């Protein structure tokens, strides 16, 4: 797999190592602020609007946003672009949830605290199983994407590139905790936004949107069809997938806990607004491939191929490859660091302390956190090296995450429900989601799982409902 690589492996290594050193040094610098468990895991619970919005947005811009959104545009046209952009609604709708999270669990550390307090040990166990499976596979797909990107753009062998990007993210997360993650996310989000605009403008200078439209209308009119059934399914399925992913995952809950109370809802809504146009801009770059005469032999790389073509034509030479590499590297690193931090928080708070009653006093805290981060990274590294098809595991998990949408909403906003029915709905929703994904059509996995869980959650309000237990303050970890 390779693009028309416009840089030598030496340049590729140099770019990645320089970027890596910058992130690690910043991680060490910001890490000095991380005092105690609240400092390291939640950046002192005092994060402001600019950093809060940027970290939520940057985390949601994954390699998929930059690589898969163009593919969706290429295959499903306008609806494909809008389908991917619909994932922004998950971030926006997390805003009202963040208000309730801050009020219900002002001392909370993880999403696991919520599930344990609202749904008991059984609900917590279900959540941990689903979220660990999902988060690890998401992390592995990011590591794989990083390795393939460095191989395609920088000529760096896959195993070395994947190890390098994972090591960089582990180092700065290890040194700086959530302070380092949020700080680097801000810089990465700016690089991503500016990079997408620069490439998009370069495309539009050579070919305006009208020319692209006429070319697509002539050669692939189905891509402009308002009533394209599979694209409409993709739109709603992707939206539900996004809701499930954001509503349940500790990546977002830890940020809600980290932000100031009044900041959290505004930051999440703003991050959704900032994220929404990125898949549209990235999708347009892909649709421009045909009219620009770019030969796309591998659809999965259409975005970088077109970007490299237009930047090359603009006389940027080797700088074209470097710009694309930097933007994609940032999009991957901003997700890997968040997943490392949030997943290791679950291992520390929910498993080590919650399940095994472990001690975190004094210097033990940093040692336990370090072991948790390194363990998550090691598992991801082994899976990414094995070549196991984790992408299918991740994409088929739509039913898993969408089954948690309604239990989260009910637990946050309702006063009573039948907890057994809600959890039965989660189990049946997961099963239905998997069945529909593999046996009927992949684009209905999240839809069907979410629908089954919604039915049971609504039913739980009317069949022998019991009040939720009063929320308890979470004790300090150190």
């Amino acid at each position, binding site marked *: 797999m390779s693009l028309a690589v416009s840089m030598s492996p030496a340049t590729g290594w140099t770019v990645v190592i320089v970027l890596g050193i910058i992130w690690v040094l910043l991680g060490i610098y910001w890490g000095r*602020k991380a005092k105690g468990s609240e400092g390291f895991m939640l*950046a*002192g619970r*005092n*994060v*402001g*609007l*600019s*950093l809060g*919005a*940027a970290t939520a*947005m940057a985390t949601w811009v994954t390699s998929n946003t930059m690589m898969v959104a163009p593919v969706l545009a290429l295959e499903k046209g*306008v609806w494909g*672009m809008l389908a991917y952009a619909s994932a922004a609604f998950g971030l926006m709708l997390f805003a009202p949830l963040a208000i309730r999270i801050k009020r219900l669990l002002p001392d909370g550390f993880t999403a696991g605290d919520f599930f344990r307090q609202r749904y008991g040990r059984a609900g917590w166990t279900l959540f941990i199983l689903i979220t660990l499976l999902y988060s690890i596979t998401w992390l592995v797909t990011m590591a794989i994407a990083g390795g393939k990107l460095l191989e395609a753009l920088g000529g760096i062998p896959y195993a070395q590139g994947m190890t390098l990007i994972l090591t960089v993210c582990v180092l700065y997360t290890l040194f700086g905790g959530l*302070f380092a993650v*949020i700080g680097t996310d*801000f810089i990465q*989000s*700016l690089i991503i*936004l*500016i990079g*997408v*605009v620069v490439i*998009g*403008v370069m495309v*539009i200078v050579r070919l*305006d*949107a*009208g020319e*692209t*439209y*006429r070319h697509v*209308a002539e050669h692939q*009119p189905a891509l*402009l*069809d*308002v009533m394209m059934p599979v694209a409409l399914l993709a739109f709603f399925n992707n939206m539900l997938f996004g809701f499930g992913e954001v509503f349940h995952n500790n990546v977002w809950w830890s940020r809600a806990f980290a932000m100031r109370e009044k900041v959290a809802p505004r930051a999440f809504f*703003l991050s959704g*607004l*900032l994220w*929404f*146009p*990125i898949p*549209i*801009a990235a999708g*347009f770059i892909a649709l421009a491939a045909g009219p620009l005469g770019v030969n796309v032999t591998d659809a999965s790389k259409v975005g970088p191929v077109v970007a490299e073509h237009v930047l090359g034509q603009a006389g940027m030479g080797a700088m074209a490859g470097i710009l694309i590499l930097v933007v994609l590297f940032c999009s991957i690193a901003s997700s890997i660091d968040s997943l490392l931090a949030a997943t290791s928080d679950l291992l520390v708070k929910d498993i080590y302390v919650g399940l095994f009653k472990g001690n975190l006093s004094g210097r033990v805290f940093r040692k336990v956190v370090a072991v948790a981060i390194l363990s998550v990274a090691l598992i991801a590294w082994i899976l990414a090296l094995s070549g196991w098809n984790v992408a299918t595991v991740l994409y088929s998990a739509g039913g898993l995450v969408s089954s948690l949408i309604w239990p989260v909403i009910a637990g946050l906003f309702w006063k009573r429900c039948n907890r057994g029915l809600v959890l039965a709905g989660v189990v049946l929703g997961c099963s239905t989601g998997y069945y529909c994904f593999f046996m009927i059509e992949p684009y209905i996995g999240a839809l069907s799982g979410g629908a089954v869980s919604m039915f049971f959650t609504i039913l739980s309000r009317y069949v022998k409902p019991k009040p939720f237990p009063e929320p308890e303050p979470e004790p300090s970890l150190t």
Partner: protein
Amino acid sequence: MFSETFFSVMITVGLVWTALGAVTLIALLIRDWIRNELW
């Protein structure tokens, strides 16, 4: 079929919106820094 006008407006707005996002983040960063509300 989506019209050419809709398509052109969507792409243009998408790019301008993305650019405004970067400007907004920088403006908010400066505001938070001045108010000492970064973190």
